[in-house]
């Protein structure tokens, strides 16, 4: 396993943490390690337009999974000043199975997120920011609350920040456990105290968002990247990456590997390097059968694809999605059918129920997969599964929940068709066994 020396220039997100990531960086330590200096510099030298321009040039992409360019998202906010309020929302509803990157930033580096939010708030001229945190992250809630108080005391939040006429405050809002709240329009509905069904787009939140006001929703990791871009500049940010996607990214590997975890690495590092050098390779006695590059809703990939670069377009080119960038290995002891069943149970449980294909289709998929598992499926069921994948595909439902849900299923059927067919063969075997038995019973009577 590699030991990495983390510096502000090479590991902008995590260099303030100790080797084992165990310290919580409170205000005093954060300020000592040049925290909030980006905010100082920005307030002194920049106007909102400059900040948006800079982030656009940096080509920072959203780290929540979809990978939309952050600068472009910011510039979609209306230019006219005739709105009373604008909002910045931080999406901290990390709940994608297999993903655990935001938790680190929320628990250990709350001030970095706050600084990113204050800068983002300035850029989009918002007066208020909400952190929508999932209810289960209790330590993160505590740490963020404390950090907000610290920041307010230091004059980084509230009225007339650092003597300018910029006012911005942050409120922590915690959820109560539903995956769909991570979808940006569902998040807005949830925050408003409505049932968190996604909204039909357009209108986009940039025009009509929280309480009908212009709203921008950014992921935790995205916002945590902002201060270092302001501080070190666009060309530095582009150069630390090894690929077209700029900057660094929290990536990880979990499953039966020697050293599961999450690390800050440049985009474009190969999955193999991540798996072997960082995660220490597969555990003894376990063989890699497949892997998911970025969370439960990404397509499975085979071991021979491990040399792929970890970035949005390279992963897309080999037929999956970069997603959250936190990968997971499937070893030879795991049955793919039962693993997919586990995934689909999750998606069926978490459907908000608004669109029929998603609400009805996912439980149906679960039932069919169960029949595969208990050996009662027929070849017809495989056709139904494939048809359902089509019925739940992109564009057929209101949000990306259903298309995301069928990605692992679709890829599993494609890559491991034999595993599915074996389940069917079992039953055919059983059927012919019973037929033989009944035949022999008949023969007895003859």
């Amino acid at each position: 396993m590699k030991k990495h020396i983390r510096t502000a220039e090479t590991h902008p997100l995590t260099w303030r943490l100790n080797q084992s990531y165990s310290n919580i960086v409170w205000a005093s330590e954060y300020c000592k390690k040049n925290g909030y200096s980006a905010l100082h510099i920005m307030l002194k030298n920049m106007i909102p337009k400059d900040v948006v321009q800079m982030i656009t040039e940096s080509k920072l992409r959203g780290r929540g999974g979809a990978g939309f360019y952050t600068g472009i998202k910011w510039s979609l906010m209306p230019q006219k000043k005739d709105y009373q309020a604008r909002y910045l929302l931080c999406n901290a509803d990390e709940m994608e199975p297999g993903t655990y990157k935001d938790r680190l930033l929320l628990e250990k580096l709350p001030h970095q997120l706050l600084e990113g939010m204050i800068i983002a708030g300035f850029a989009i001229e918002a007066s208020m920011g909400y952190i929508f945190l999932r209810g289960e992250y209790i330590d993160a809630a505590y740490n963020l609350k404390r950090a907000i108080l610290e920041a307010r005391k230091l004059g980084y939040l509230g009225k007339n920040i650092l003597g300018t006429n910029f006012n911005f405050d942050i409120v922590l809002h915690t959820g109560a456990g539903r995956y769909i709240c991570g979808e940006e329009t569902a998040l807005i509905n949830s925050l408003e105290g409505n049932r968190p069904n996604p909204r039909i787009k357009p209108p986009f939140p940039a025009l009509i968002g929280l309480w009908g006001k212009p709203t921008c929703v950014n992921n935790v990791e995205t916002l945590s990247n902002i201060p270092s871009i302001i501080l070190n500049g666009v060309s530095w940010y582009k150069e630390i990456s090894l690929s077209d996607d700029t900057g660094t990214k929290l990536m990880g590997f979990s499953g039966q590997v020697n050293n599961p975890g999450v690390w800050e690495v440049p985009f474009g590092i190969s999955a193999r390097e991540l798996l072997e050098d960082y995660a220490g390779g597969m555990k003894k006695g376990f063989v890699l059968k497949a892997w998911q590059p970025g969370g439960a809703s990404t397509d499975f990939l085979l071991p021979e694809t491990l040399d792929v670069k970890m970035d949005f377009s390279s992963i897309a080119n080999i037929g999956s999605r970069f997603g959250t960038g936190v990968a997971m290995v499937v070893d030879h002891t795991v049955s793919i059918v039962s693993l997919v069943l586990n995934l689909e149970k999750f998606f069926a449980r978490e459907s908000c129920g608004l669109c029929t294909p998603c609400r009805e289709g996912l439980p149906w998929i679960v039932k069919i997969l169960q029949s595969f598992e208990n050996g009662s499926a027929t070849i017809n069921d495989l056709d139904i599964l494939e048809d359902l994948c089509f019925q739940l595909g992109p564009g057929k439902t209101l949000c990306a929940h259903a298309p995301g849900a069928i990605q692992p299923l679709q890829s599993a059927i494609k890559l491991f068709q034999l595993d599915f067919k074996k389940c069917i063969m079992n039953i055919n075997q059983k059927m012919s066994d019973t037929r033989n038995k009944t035949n022999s019973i008949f023969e007895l009577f003859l």
Partner: protein
Amino acid sequence: MLNNKLNDIELYKIIEETKHYEDKKAASIEALKIVQNSRGWISDQLMYEISAILCISVSQLEEIATFYSQIYRQPVGRNIIKYCDSVVCYMMGCNKIQLILEDILKIKPGCTTIDHKFTLLPISCLGNCDKAPVLMINSITYSNVNSTCIPILLEKCK
């Protein structure tokens, strides 16, 4: 004896929460959680009380209360045990963890022990997959759990 009126502390906390938003309704989840924290669950009568403070109808509040997995509309045990049943924990043996819990507590997931000491629930990924399998007891997350540590953890519960 169940008290069906909100007490002053709960009232105060809810009103403070509403100040953070343009619309009081946005404090719904927080209000439900405040009441649930002191009482364990939320009765019908309390739903009326909360909705009155938030100036919304009971059915509007019910929409919220029934949507989220962490709002309890029926009595639960003093300790809530949640085991992660998502994909990584699944590969790392959450089924075994579930069986051990069922065996010790003598209940199925979704149920409460007769002495009201424990409620057992499944939960989605707790964002600790690199330390799977993961268990959450009340507000504390335990990672890398195994058959030996579970009885000890349960022993510590009141």
